[in-house]
């Protein structure tokens, strides 16, 4: 009985409708932020592909640039005893090769490198002076 009365009342209320409202003001497409405009999945896929191609090209160019540098052994061969050079990274293979082929140059290279890497031992007030060769 109560349900029937509720249905009657609902039916009565539904005779009334919400008042209409003004039209939706759609802003100009150009005024919308780019996030709303770039929604085409094909466009998104193309953008991604272009980015991958760019990244690949950069990696290839960088790799080619690296292989074009002169080998370390060539630089080591040109080292003279007592020559001061800035500290640099020398591979173990190149050092071994130098040690086998020219032990004098190898000693000179190590002596030179040690001067740039270790604390001085030559000075009269050096704490490591006792270790230095006379």
């Amino acid at each position: 009985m109560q349900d029937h009365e509720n249905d009657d009342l609902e039916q009565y209320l539904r005779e009334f409708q919400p008042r209409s409202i003004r039209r939706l003001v759609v802003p100009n497409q150009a005024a919308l932020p780019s996030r709303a405009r770039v929604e085409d999945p094909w466009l998104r896929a193309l953008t991604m592909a272009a980015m991958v191609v760019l990244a690949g090209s950069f990696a290839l160019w960088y790799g080619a640039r690296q292989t074009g540098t002169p080998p370390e052994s060539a630089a080591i061969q040109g080292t003279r005893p007592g020559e001061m050079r800035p500290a640099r990274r020398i591979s173990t293979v190149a050092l071994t090769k130098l040690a086998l082929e020219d032990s004098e140059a190898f000693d000179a290279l190590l002596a030179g490198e040690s001067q740039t890497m270790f604390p001085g031992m030559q000075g009269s007030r050096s704490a490591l002076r006792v270790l230095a060769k006379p």
Partner: protein
Amino acid sequence: MTPNPLNAAEVKLLYEEHGPALAAYGCCCGLDFAAADDVVQQVFLKLLEGRVAMPEKPLAYLYRAVRNTSLNRRRDFRHEVEIHEEDSWLVKQDGNPEEALAVQAALGDLPEEQRETVFLRVWSGMTLQEIAVVLEIPMNTVASRYRYALDKLRERLQPARNARGEYAGPRKR
């Protein structure tokens, strides 16, 4: 997975279909009609700009958005809002405007939580379960609010319905 934002045509379609009911719902939340109209425009503009992604239940989202925005607006402009009696948000085709105002006034006398429950059930066509989702309350609470609201409305609207010769009072049990 994040749902995609709607395109402009889909947003317009939603607006045309649900805009008037959403504005009336804004009135149920305590706004005058012009302010409720603004709130609905604001909610749909956000959709158009892609600032929000439409969830799986668009209707529930829209009603919740209108409700929250209306409550915020009412709080921000609480000293300025003055709802006039004649500010109608319900109309009846070929009907007496005074009858629509009587229904509106009867709804206005309900506590807010009962009023919005009736609105969502009658004019938005939602099930009690869907209303519970929009209002974020248990379904039993929705059901009891709705029952109390209908009892009050029946009593309040009895004279108007009697005048139409439609309603002869509660049936004898």
